[in-house]
């Protein structure tokens, strides 16, 4: 769970930085997208980096989901008789309670996101348009519900990472001393917040017309 999650977080950081190139204009953004396809060429065939990334991501997502399902099944087996009284959470961690349904929302989002931005199936411009045009078309005000779905999904990812990052540090045994623990808690909050802000910046700016 922790290791696959960490790989996915590293990908998200790279993905967010790439997205922010939308603010540098169409050329910069399209050029970056093109570079991702041709990096290492001609020594390496086109799409080498992308193919490797895709394989690693698919493996990590599958293993991450498998770990989550095994934990949930173990939990169900460990408490066959439920409590009659509603269990009141005593820990003040709202994010921890969103992990399972939040994870499902994130998976559904990723499916939509791939159909929208990668394959262009549900994108108004279709798969043949430049990445910049696809992104701009995707978040136009008449498609406000798409932007809204993105925002909700980003908040879910933020909550998922808030607990997930801290939980990964804990599972890897890094939070043994109070000082390091406090520092890593803050790191989890900061990384989650930066990722959410970085990811919502583009859809929001396109929605309100700052980026055209």
């Amino acid at each position: 769970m922790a290791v696959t999650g960490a790989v996915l977080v590293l990908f998200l950081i790279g993905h967010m930085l790439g997205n922010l190139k939308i603010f540098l204009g169409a050329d910069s953004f399209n050029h970056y997208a093109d570079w991702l396809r041709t990096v290492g060429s001609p020594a390496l065939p086109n799409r080498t980096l992308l193919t490797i990334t895709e394989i690693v991501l698919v493996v990590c997502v599958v293993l991450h989901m498998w770990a989550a399902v095994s934990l949930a099944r173990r939990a169900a087996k460990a408490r066959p008789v439920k409590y009659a009284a509603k269990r009141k959470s005593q820990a003040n961690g709202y994010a921890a309670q969103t992990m399972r349904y939040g994870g499902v929302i994130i998976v559904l989002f990723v499916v939509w996101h791939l159909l929208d931005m990668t394959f262009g199936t549900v994108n108004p411009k279709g798969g043949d348009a430049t990445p910049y045009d696809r992104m701009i078309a995707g978040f136009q005000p008449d498609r406000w519900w798409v932007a809204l779905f993105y925002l909700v999904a980003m908040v879910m990812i933020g909550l998922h990472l808030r607990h997930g990052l801290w939980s990964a540090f804990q599972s890897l045994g890094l939070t043994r001393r109070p000082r390091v623990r406090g520092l890593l808690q803050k790191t989890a909050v900061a990384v989650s917040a930066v990722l959410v802000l970085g990811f919502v910046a583009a859809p929001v700016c396109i929605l309100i017309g700052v980026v055209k």
Partner: protein
Amino acid sequence: MNLTLKIWRQNGSSDKGRMVTYRVEDVSPDMSFLEMLDVLNERLILEGDDPVAFDHDCREGICGMCGMVINGVAHGEQKLTTTCQLHMRHFKDGDVVTIEPWRAAAFPVVKDLVVDRSAFDRIIQAGGFISVPAGSAPEAHSVPVPKAAADAAFDAATCIGCGACVAACPNGSASLFTAAKITHLSLLPQGQPERESRARAMVEQMDAEGFGGCTNTGECTAVCPKGIPLDTIAQMNADYLKAASK
């Protein structure tokens, strides 16, 4: 004050069990929760009924015998207290109080609110011995222990093994208990020779008992009457990973 109690009644492990409602009248706010149950039980005995079975021993919060889930919270909502140290002044007249046993496959119900916590004993047993001569007490200063390590080890060692962590965990995990026991030795010089093999054996026994996996929700430490910190779980994971990587 007068209370309505909804208590889990189960006559032995093969009985299906059910919630039964009782009225308790003239409860003094100075009573402990267990004394309030004693009042109910005295009445049930006089009426020829079967008294409600619950575990208890010292009634001063140090033995780890008592424990029940009160209104959905292990040991009740008062922080850092066992059920015996929970007083009725935290309740008010007319309250409906739901009382259930710890719920875990690894803690089968013996009767009513009494569960069998032998799984904890087997985890301790799996930890084995530490390599120190067990003769006369050694000179106290012969093994230096840093103050920070002594404090953290002692914090972990205050675990009374009541099982509230398992009861509160949404996954039914025994990680906080096992981690407390592992940490209290792994931070001290005396615990070093068997540190990794002990962590590995205890974690494997914990899993074999049918407890759930830890997802670091922190529900355990929030209800722990001794406030065992989550740091102990990180210590357990670190020791286990080190042992498993060899």
